[in-house]
Structure formats: C-alpha cells, structure tokens
C-alpha cells in the first residue's frame, strides 16, 4: 500500500516540476507572440483535454515502442523503449496534463498586460531580467494554480497509465490502477481505503483552489 502511494506521489511531483518548466516558455509565447498560427498550436496543446486517455495512451505506446522514430535516437544511450517504465509514465503524464499547466500560466501572463514589462524596460531591466523579476512574480497565482491542477490531475489519471504503465509494483503501479485491480478481485475493504483517501485529497485540492481565488479577489488593487 505504501509503495503504491509513494509511486503515485513521486510521479505527480516529477510531472509537476518538469511540466511547469516546460510550459512557462510555451505559455509566454502564446500570451505575447504575434504569430497568426499560435492559436493552432494552442489548439493542439489543448487536445489532451478532449481526447480519451486511451487515444493518448495508444499513440504514446506506439511512440515509446522499440524502433519508433522517437526511440531510435535514444538507442545509443541504451534506451530501447519507454513503455512500462517510470520515465515513460512521467513523459505521458506531462503530455496528458499539458493544457492544465499552459492555460492558467498563459492567462496569468495575459492578465498582466504589456505595461509592467515596458515599465521594467524603462527602468533598465533587460527582457530576461524583467521576465524573472516582473513577469514570473506577477504571474505567481497562475503558477500556483497550474501546479495544483497538474499535481491533482496526475494523481487522478487512469486511462493513460493503464495503456502504457503496465502496473509494475514500485515502478508504474499507481493508486488509481491499484483501486481498479482491488475492485476487480473484490477486495472492497482495501479499495475503500485508497478511494476514500483520493476523495479527501480531491476535496483538499478544490478547497485550496477556491481559497486561492478568493485571496486573489481580495488583494486586487482598486
């Protein structure tokens, strides 16, 4: 029981950290870029919300298979496949939760407007300096929201993990899969414990989000 919880938390933590780093430049470009085709990219990045996890899992399984165009360049490093591995699961979770990170961060950057970056420039901050000292701190609520959403979404994912995880104890077996297996084998008592734990977790996350929103409301300058 402890091992499966630990694997789940580890997966969610890795996914959250890596995804926030990855999503930040993408969200910035979507918020500030002037390319006409940026909404096309935005739509592609939002697809994981609409697609059934089985579709994503299926394509990822093909991409992670030995000899695929994605795996071929990794061969010299001794990596044949990413399917049924923790690393593969992290990558899959990143793809699956991408919109949950990009959207709130993009909105936060957009809400900021152009002015603060211009102000920073007139105060001699280079664009990179201004990004770290003005844009990031001003968008911190967007980052917090993204982190909570991604972490929670990863804890709750089932379909993608089922397709590419393989349920290897200590490696790819996560809580949602374990609950499924426990119910399949009619071990309801154990399933109850994990399921109730997830309900409490989900409630905590939603409460945190709502309180965060109210805090933002109250602190908004007139």
């Amino acid at each position, binding site marked *: 029981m402890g091992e499966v919880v630990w694997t789940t938390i580890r997966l969610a933590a890795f996914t959250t950290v890596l995804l926030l780093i990855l999503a930040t430049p993408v969200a910035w470009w979507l918020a500030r870029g002037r390319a006409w085709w940026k909404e096309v990219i935005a739509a592609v990045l939002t697809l994981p919300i609409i697609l059934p996890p089985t579709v994503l899992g299926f394509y990822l399984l093909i991409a992670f298979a030995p000899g695929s165009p994605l795996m071929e360049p990794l061969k010299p490093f001794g990596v044949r496949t990413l399917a049924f591995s923790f690393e593969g699961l992290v990558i899959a979770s990143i793809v699956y939760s991408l919109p949950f990170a990009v959207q709130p961060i993009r909105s936060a950057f957009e809400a900021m407007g152009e*002015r*603060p970056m*211009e*102000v*920073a*420039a*007139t*105060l*001699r*901050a*280079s*664009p990179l*300096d*201004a990004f770290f*000292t*003005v844009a990031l*701190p*001003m968008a*911190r609520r967007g980052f917090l929201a993204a982190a909570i959403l991604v972490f929670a979404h990863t804890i709750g994912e089932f379909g993608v993990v089922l397709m590419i995880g393989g349920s290897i104890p200590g490696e790819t077996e996560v809580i949602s899969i374990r609950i499924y297996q426990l119910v399949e084998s009619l071990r309801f008592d154990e399933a109850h414990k994990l399921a109730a734990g997830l309900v409490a977790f989900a409630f905590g996350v939603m409460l945190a989000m709502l309180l965060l929103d109210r805090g933002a409301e109250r*602190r*908004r*300058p*007139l």
Partner: protein
Amino acid sequence: MSEGVDVRFAGAVGGFRLEAELRLAPRAITGLSGPSGSGKTTLIRCLAGLMRLPGRMVVDGDVWQDERRFRPAHRRPVGVVFQEASLLPHLSVRGNLDYGARRAGGVSAEALAEVVELLGLGPLMGRGVARLSGGERQRVALGRALLSRPRLLLMDEPLSSLDAASKAEIIPYLERLHRALAMPMLYVTHDRRELDRLADVVLHMQAGRIVPGPERPDEAAALAGLSPQDRDALALAALRAGLSPASHA
C-alpha cells in the same frame, strides 16, 4: 557636445503616420499638447525606445537612434511616467524605487533621501502599492523614474487619471522638481493649467506632426521679453486687427 535632445521621426504605425521633428532644451520642461490620437503617446514611446520608427534621436551628443543604430528601452537612461498607475504591484514602494535605481548602478543614500524629500515619499516607503491613492502612486512613479538616473524625463499625461484634489496635491511637487532638476523633460497634457504652471515651452501636435499651435514657442519667447503693459497693448492691437500677436509683431 550639444546639450539637449534633438529628434526627428518619420514613419507609420498601422494606418497612423508620425512625422515629428523637435528639440528639447537641456534644463526645461517642454509641454506637448494636442487632441487625442494626434500621436503624443506614440512620440513618447519612440523617445523611450519602446517603439521603433525610422528617424534619428540624439541626447546630449549621444546618438540613441539613427539609420543603423537603435538603443532599446532598457539601454536608454530615460525616465518615463505613464498616464495610469504603472507601479509594479508585487513590490512595495521601496521595492519600486529600488528596482530602477539598482539597475542604473545604484544611487547614494543622499540621492535617495533627496528624492524622497522632494516628492514627500517618506511616509509611504514601507507600504504596498495597492494601498496608495492615485496621487501618491504617481509621486512614487515619478520618484522611481528619477532614481533610475535618467538623462531625459518623459511624462505622458501623468495627472490625467487623477481627480482635481489629487492634481492640486501633486502639481506643487512637479514645480519643485522643475526647479531641482537639470535635464530635458517632455510633459504631455491636455490641461491648459498644467501647461501654464509647468511648461517653459509648449509644442502642439496634430495628426502626427508638431504644428504651430495656439502657443508657438517663438511667440512665447517673443512675449516673454515684454512688460505686461506692452503685452496687453499688443494683444489689443491683435484683437482689433483680427490677427495673432506673433504675426503682428
């Protein structure tokens, strides 16, 4: 080295064409008025380096822009006070003042104290910017611009978002500033009273050009040397003849 700022811009943004040529005297406030959409803000943005239009800009002999070169905003020692509150909301008043000062190589404690004294910022220092009034915010914005050690100060309708009481509160600070500072300043406003109280020279802008306005600088200069009686006589004669005083003189 010629002191002051010499500027010539000619170019289009969208459908709007700016063709402006002007000179800002080294120690004076140059007022700039004109109807909305006449290009005043565009001109300020070009001067600050936030926007690039073809042209040339020389500040105290240093070329900031010409055919080949363009210094972006963060490499120009220019202070900008925007129309609306533009304080960085995640920083305190002190944080805002420090932001530009640190990047301009730091300012001495005396310089900081002087600006704080000049603008009456002492009681505000530890506060968050969300708790300031409109007038206080613009004073902080002004102080922040000054502490970034500018060689040119640009103010884009800094009082237009304030109510009458806040305006009346901040104008004396601007007058003190005018006496204390030795740098060219461009002050954009619609308000005649602000121009009268603050500007040494007034330029007028219309449809992207600097045009001879109701107050031509040469007129102002010509009239400044006259006694009030002479001025009145001149105005009376001009009224009778239906002509402007300058063409009469």
